[in-house]
C-alpha cells in the first residue's frame, strides 16, 4: 500500500456468471444483484442505481432489510458481516462473511464450494477462521425483504467532499483529561486529522479514516478505539 491508503475506501467491482465464455468486458450497469460490504456506503454512493426491478441488495448491516434505510423496487437482504468477521477472524474483513450470506440468499453456490475455494486459497488457521465466518454468515443472514413501499435512500456526501467518515469501522475517542499534549498523534496521523487545541489533541472526524495509528502510538492510552454503531 502507498502512503495513507488503507482498507475501507469505496471500491466497486463487477461479476458476471455464465455457462459459456463471457466476452463482454464493459462494466455491469444493470445488475441483478448488488452486494454492499459497508453499511454506510449508501450515504456516499448511489448503490442501487441501475439495479433491475425486483433485484436484490445484499448489504452488510446489523438490522433486517426494511430497517436499512434503503427503499425502491427491489428486495433487501442483510447480514451483520462486520461483527461476524470480528467474532471469527478478529478483524473487520467482511469479504468471506458476505460470501456465506450470498450463498444463503441466492442459492447459486453451495457452502461446500465456498469452503473448497477458501481451502484452495488459504490453509491452516486463516482458512479455518474464514470458513467459520462463511458458516456463521450463512446461518445468520436475513432473507430478502420487499422495500418497494419505502422511500429511496438519500446520498448525503457529494462527490468531491472530503468526508471519509464512512471508511471507519472503529473511531478514536480522546480522553482530554488523560492527554499530556505530547503531539505524537498530531505528528503521526497520516490524514492530518488531528490538530492541537489549548495544548491538547483534537480529532477532526470528517478527515479520520479510523486507521488506529493514534490509538497505537498514544503513550498514556488517552485514545480509545470504539466500534462505530449504526
Amino acid at each position, binding site marked *: 500500500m502507498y502512503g495513507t491508503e488503507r482498507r475501507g475506501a469505496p471500491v466497486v467491482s463487477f461479476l458476471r456468471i455464465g455457462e459459456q*465464455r463471457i*466476452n*463482454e*468486458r*464493459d*462494466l455491469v450497469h444493470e445488475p441483478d444483484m448488488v452486494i454492499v460490504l459497508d453499511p454506510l456506503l449508501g450515504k456516499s454512493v448511489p448503490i442501487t442505481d441501475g439495479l433491475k426491478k425486483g433485484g436484490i441488495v445484499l448489504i452488510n448491516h446489523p438490522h433486517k432489510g426494511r430497517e436499512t434505510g434503503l427503499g425502491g423496487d427491489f428486495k433487501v437482504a442483510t447480514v451483520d458481516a462486520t461483527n461476524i468477521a470480528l467474532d471469527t477472524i478478529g478483524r473487520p474483513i467482511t469479504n468471506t462473511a458476505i460470501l456465506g450470506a450470498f450463498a444463503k440468499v441466492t442459492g447459486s453456490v453451495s457452502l461446500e464450494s465456498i469452503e473448497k475455494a477458501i481451502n484452495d486459497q488459504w490453509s491452516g488457521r486463516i482458512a479455518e477462521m474464514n470458513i467459520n465466518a462463511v458458516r456463521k454468515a450463512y446461518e445468520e443472514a436475513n432473507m430478502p425483504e420487499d422495500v418497494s413501499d419505502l422511500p429511496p435512500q438519500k446520498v448525503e456526501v457529494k462527490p468531491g467532499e472530503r468526508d471519509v467518515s464512512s471508511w471507519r469501522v472503529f473511531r478514536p475517542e480522546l480522553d482530554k483529561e488523560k492527554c499530556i499534549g505530547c503531539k505524537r498523534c498530531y505528528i503521526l496521523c497520516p490524514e492530518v486529522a488531528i490538530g492541537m487545541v489549548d495544548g491538547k489533541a483534537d480529532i477532526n472526524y470528517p478527515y479520520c479514516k479510523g486507521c488506529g495509528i493514534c490509538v497505537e502510538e498514544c503513550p498514556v492510552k488517552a485514545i480509545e478505539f470504539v466500534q462505530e454503531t449504526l
Partner: protein
Amino acid sequence: MAKKFEVMVGNKAVAYAAKLARVKYVSAFPITPQTTIVQYLADMMASGELDAEYVTMEGELSCQASAITASTTVRSFTATSGPGLLYMHHPMHMTSWARLPLVMAVVHRSTKGMQPDQMDTMSQRDTGWLMLECQNSQELLDTGIMSFKIAEDPRVRLPLIFAGDGYILSYTSEPVEIPAQEEVDAFLPPYKRPYPMYPEEAEEARALMSEMWNPFVDPQKVWADQQQAAMNAKTVIKEVNAEFEKWFGRSYGNGLVEEYKCEDVDAVLVSMGTIASTAKTAIDQMQKNGKKIGLVAIKSFKPFPDEEFQRIAGYAKAMGVIDRNVSTGTRGGITFTEIRHALYDVDERPVTLNFHAGMRGKEVRVEDLKRMAEKTLKAANGEKVSPIVEWA
C-alpha cells in the same frame, strides 16, 4: 490427460506462461498494473515450482538491459506497463538490433493515466519488436507460450511483446485452462543460445565480430535483415498457431487475425485487445437482429497482417476500425492508418471508418460498439457517413 482449470487473473496467466516456458531469467521492476506478474513469478520461484534467476532492477531501463544480456545465454522474460515501457525504449532498439528472442509481457497502461490504452506499445512501434495482442486471460497464457516459439524460430529471432489491457484483463478473474508441463515441453523445445559463448566456439565468434565491424557491409543491412525476419514472422506465427491448436485444442484465428462470425457479412468491425472481446457480444446481438456485420480482431500488430486485410476487402464493403490509440497529427488511429495502407493495393477498396475509443481506460460498452457497427453498415450500404474519423 485430465484438464486442469484454475480461476485466475490475467496477470497470473502471464506468470504461468513464463513458468511453463521454463524461463531461466526474470528481470523485474514493479509498476501498476504489471506488478503482480513478477510477484506471482517470485512466489513460484520461492516455492520451488520454477527454477530461475530473479533480479529486481533499479528501473525499467536496466530491466531491459539486463534481459538483453541474459537472453544471449538463457530464455529470459520481463514485464512492464505504460511509463515503464517508455523508460525501456532506448535499450529496446538494442534488443532487436542484437536479434535476441527476448519475450516481454506488457500490461497496457496509458501514458497519460493509470487506466489502459495502447499508447505504451504503440510508442515502441518502430523498435523492431514483434507485437501480439490478447483478448482474455486464456489467450494471455497461450500467447505467452507461443511467443517464445515464434521469437526463437531461426527464421525470426526477434524480440516479442505480448500484451493485454491493464485492469480489464490484469485484474479480472476468469477460468483458465493450464496446459500440462510435459506437453508444453514437447511443444516448446529448450532455448537455443543465439550467440557463441565458450572457448571452443571462438572461430564462430570471430566470424561474427568481423562481420559486425566489416566497413564494407551495407550499413542498412541490419535493418533489411530485421525487416526480412519480421516478414518471415507472418508465416511462423501462422505455423505456431496451428501447431498450438494440435497440441492444446485452442487457436486464435490464423494467428495474425481472428475473423469472428464473418460468413455472409457486408461489413466488419476491426479492433484489438479487450475491445475486440466486447465487440463479439455486440456482433452476436447485431446478427441476432439480422444485421450482416462481423468482427476482425487483430492478433498480430507487428508483423501487420496486410494480406489478411486485402483478402477481407474481398467480402467487406466497409470496415469500422476501432483504435485504442492515436497518432496525433495524422488522420486517425494507428491500425486505421496501417489498414488503409494495406488496402491501397486493392482495386475495389472498402469504405474505411475510424473510431477512437477506450483511450485512458474510457469504458467501451456493448451499446457503443453497436452504434459503431450501425454506422459501418450504413457506409457498406452506400450511404455517405461522416466524420470518417471520430472520437467515440
